[in-house]
């Protein structure tokens, strides 16, 4: 493939970087990234990857845009309320960069369709808001051997790390299973400061680009936690867990399944304040 004059201008600030160059920009243009969830995390991820010139962005989300989403889901604008999120997202991506091929799936990501959905893609992004979905994405990426960039947000905090299956610690190496129902609140119950989605999502996009380009040090075996109240990052070094129920020496998780959806009520605010 070769770039047009217009594309060379569009991507000139990338091409100037010795670590990217024309060769790297071609890798970006040939890459396919699958974003699960076109919401708080999915918005910055999809926008920055689109701006970067990613060849194909796959987006899956079964939701429609709600007015309460607009405080953080920057893919969607006020007139989009009530419209399909993936359709709204596709339009914004096209306006930003018509070079990008956007594949949209107005569907839920489930144990029965997960493997088919991620198969054509090079990198997967977690932009979902339930624990069962986060574990499902982790497991599917492990079985498919796809690099995954995990993201999670709550209140003023966020977490991001990359997973190269079989090589670095996976989500289950750290959290073997979802918390008991009702113990950990969702953003819907506990709130989320909108910008944290932007901060974590842009780091996820950065990691995806680095994985595609093969540059720098990936955020693997390191968990990056961010606290907006302190504007502080905490890096937690980790490693693969030999007792991981998925990628450990004696796995219990040998096929895809969905954990029970957690109950939508909060029992104990508990000791979340620690840090």
């Amino acid at each position, binding site marked *: 493939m070769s770039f047009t004059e217009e594309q060379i201008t569009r991507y000139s600030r990338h091409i100037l970087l010795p670590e990217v160059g024309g060769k790297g920009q071609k890798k970006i243009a040939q890459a396919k990234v699958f974003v699960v969830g076109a919401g708080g995390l*999915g918005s910055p991820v999809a926008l920055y990857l689109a701006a970067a010139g990613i060849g194909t962005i796959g987006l899956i989300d079964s939701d429609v845009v709600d007015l309460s989403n607009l405080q953080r889901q920057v893919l969607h604008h006020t007139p989009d309320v009530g419209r399909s999120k993936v359709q709204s997202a596709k339009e914004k991506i096209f306006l930003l960069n018509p070079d990008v091929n956007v594949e949209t799936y107005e569907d839920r990501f489930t144990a029965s369709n997960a493997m088919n959905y991620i198969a054509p893609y090079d990198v997967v992004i977690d*932009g979902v808001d339930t*624990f069962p979905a986060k574990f499902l994405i982790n497991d599917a990426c492990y079985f498919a051997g796809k690099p995954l960039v995990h993201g*999670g947000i709550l209140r003023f905090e966020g977490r991001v790390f990359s997973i190269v299956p079989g090589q670095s610690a996976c989500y289950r190496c750290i*959290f*073997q299973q979802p918390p008991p129902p009702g*113990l950990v609140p969702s953003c819907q119950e506990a709130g989320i400061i909108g910008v944290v989605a932007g901060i974590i999502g842009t780091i996820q996009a950065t990691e995806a680009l680095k994985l595609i380009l093969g540059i720098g040090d990936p955020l693997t075996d390191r968990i990056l936690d961010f606290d907006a109240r302190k504007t502080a990052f905490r890096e937690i070094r980790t490693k693969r867990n030999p007792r991981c129920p998925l990628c450990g020496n004696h796995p219990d998780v040998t096929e895809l399944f969905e954990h029970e959806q957690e109950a939508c009520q909060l029992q104990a605010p508990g*000791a979340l304040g*620690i840090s």
Partner: protein
Amino acid sequence: MQITINGKPEEVQADTVMDVLKQKDIDPHMVAVELNTQIVERDRLPTTKVQDGDKVEFLFYMGGGA
């Protein structure tokens, strides 16, 4: 005994990782616990010893994204 909790040195009276959790008033179901970069699964919290100078990290669940 002094250990480092989430990057900060703290004085604790604890024999096991579970003792540290209790002292910090943390429900073990709400966190993943790492001792010196090694994950300690929930069932091993009461039997895993802590020593002076150990580094303990608590990772609370964060399930949001949308």
